[in-house]
């Protein structure tokens, strides 16, 4: 029973299902043919075309900036939320706080996007800000969503963290700030890094919320790719997928090494 073939076959088929379309897409990015997914000999031409596509490049640059700043904000916000949930103890309104902290995880994208847009519109009507929706509004939306995910990671880490280490530091005369900086923060580092990467990825991947809260000034990479895909697939998207795939592999690999380094130092 233990050596039954069924789970292994299931895993193999599942992985094949997950990876085959992506690998085919990546492979055909190097095809000279004008039609995606047809082989016309090896060629770099779609990568060259990609590098010359200014609309895509501008959108990619905006997306990277928004994703990096949103992820950084998300880690600070998520760190605070996780801290409150794990360490604050009971306070008035805690159930409501927990529900609000978890809401971005379970709200459908269309609801999150619509609610934030309507909020920004009413805010503009009342205060004049934000006069133009774009990078800033997308950043705020993505930091809110990413923060909710980072909070889960931080809270889980804080819950399993041994309080003895912090108490020992306090007993040896370290102040709360020193204890936090030299004990708690290094122990939290893996979940903060993981939270940053998760928020970064979620931001780079989001079409729906960004489409709602953005204006004519802010077009992110996923918004451009989505409008291209609506008209059908082009070989340039194949090439773009290869670039994203390589970025994802290096960032996942880097995260693993980093986490191993952080954990290995202990």
């Amino acid at each position, binding site marked *: 029973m233990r050596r039954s073939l069924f789970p292994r076959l299931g895993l193999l088929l*599942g992985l094949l299902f997950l990876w085959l379309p992506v690998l085919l897409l990546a492979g055909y990015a190097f095809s000279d043919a004008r039609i995606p997914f047809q082989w016309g000999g090896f060629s770099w031409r779609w990568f060259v075309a990609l590098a010359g596509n200014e609309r895509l490049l501008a959108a990619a640059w905006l997306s990277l900036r928004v994703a990096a700043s949103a992820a950084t904000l998300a880690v600070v916000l998520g760190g605070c939320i996780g801290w409150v949930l794990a360490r604050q103890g009971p306070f008035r309104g805690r159930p409501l706080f927990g529900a609000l902290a978890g809401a971005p995880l379970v709200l*459908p994208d269309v609801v999150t996007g619509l609610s934030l847009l*309507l909020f920004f519109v009413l805010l503009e009507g009342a205060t004049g800000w934000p006069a133009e929706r774009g990078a800033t509004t997308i950043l705020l939306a993505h930091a809110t969503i990413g923060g909710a995910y980072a909070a889960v990671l931080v809270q889980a880490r804080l819950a399993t963290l041994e309080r003895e280490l912090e108490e020992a530091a306090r007993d040896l005369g370290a102040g709360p700030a020193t204890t936090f900086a030299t004990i708690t923060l290094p122990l939290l580092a893996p979940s903060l890094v993981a939270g940053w990467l998760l928020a970064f990825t979620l931001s780079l991947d989001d*079409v729906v919320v960004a489409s709602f809260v953005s204006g004519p000034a802010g077009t992110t990479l996923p918004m451009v790719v989505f409008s291209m895909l609506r008209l059908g697939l082009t070989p340039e998207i194949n090439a773009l997928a290869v670039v994203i795939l390589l970025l994802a592999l290096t960032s996942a690999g880097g995260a693993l090494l980093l986490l191993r380094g952080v954990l290995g130092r202990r």
Partner: protein
Amino acid sequence: MRRLPLLVPVLWLGLLVAVPLLVVLVLSVSWPAEGVPPFNLPGVAGLNGDSFALVLGDPYYRAAFLKALVVAGATAGLCLLLAFPMALGLVRAAAAWRAPLLLLVLLPFWTGFLPRLGAWIGLLRDEGWINHLLQAWGFIETPLPLLYSWPALFLGMVHAYLPFAVLPLYASLSRLDPVLEEAAADLGAGGFTVFRTITLPLAAPGAAAAFLLVFIPAAGEYVIPELLGPPSAQVVGRVLWQEFFQNRDWPTAAALAVLLLLALLIPIHLFQRLEARS
């Protein structure tokens, strides 16, 4: 100083989560108007119940909710069927293989949602890979209409959400003590009986979490039905998008959002209870 970590998230969550949700509620009973923005708040004119009356009364909107729930349920069910043997395979893999295999399951989540949908478009469309192969081998003369169909929609949905289903199942199966299965086998139970009487009941909470983790986001999905589905796949996410972006009927879009949230309250509550227990 000690209040700062409480003050920052309270302000942030209040402003960017609680207030926007209240705003949606207010908008759903507002009056549509010509102009920018295209609505008048319920002030002197009172509340406007037309949007809810429209969405609840018109068969088109009612069908959108039904389709979304059926699509989400079927997607979650299919994901569960595929994820169970995958999670079982992961748990029973040699220890050295487990982490890399788990990474292989999760990495597609990291490689971009849109490129993966692009891959399915390239495989399924009329001049796509599958039709090209079938024609080259002489099975068909004219291309099959694979893209923009219900099967294409489900392929895309299951492909996108499968990793979400594997994770909770893997977590609950890896906590399962193999001694229990061995004991059942020693007492003469066959492979299937062990699975049915030991493995399956003990993995049930994980399976429920996996189902809900797929069902909840799938119910509001917009992008996949839009890119892969047939025109008849007017699920609620797509209808809401059209009301907002094409018809510029913001109160109706807000009423749809409120009702979608109400429909998801029970699954969300169930999911949070499962999470709290584990």
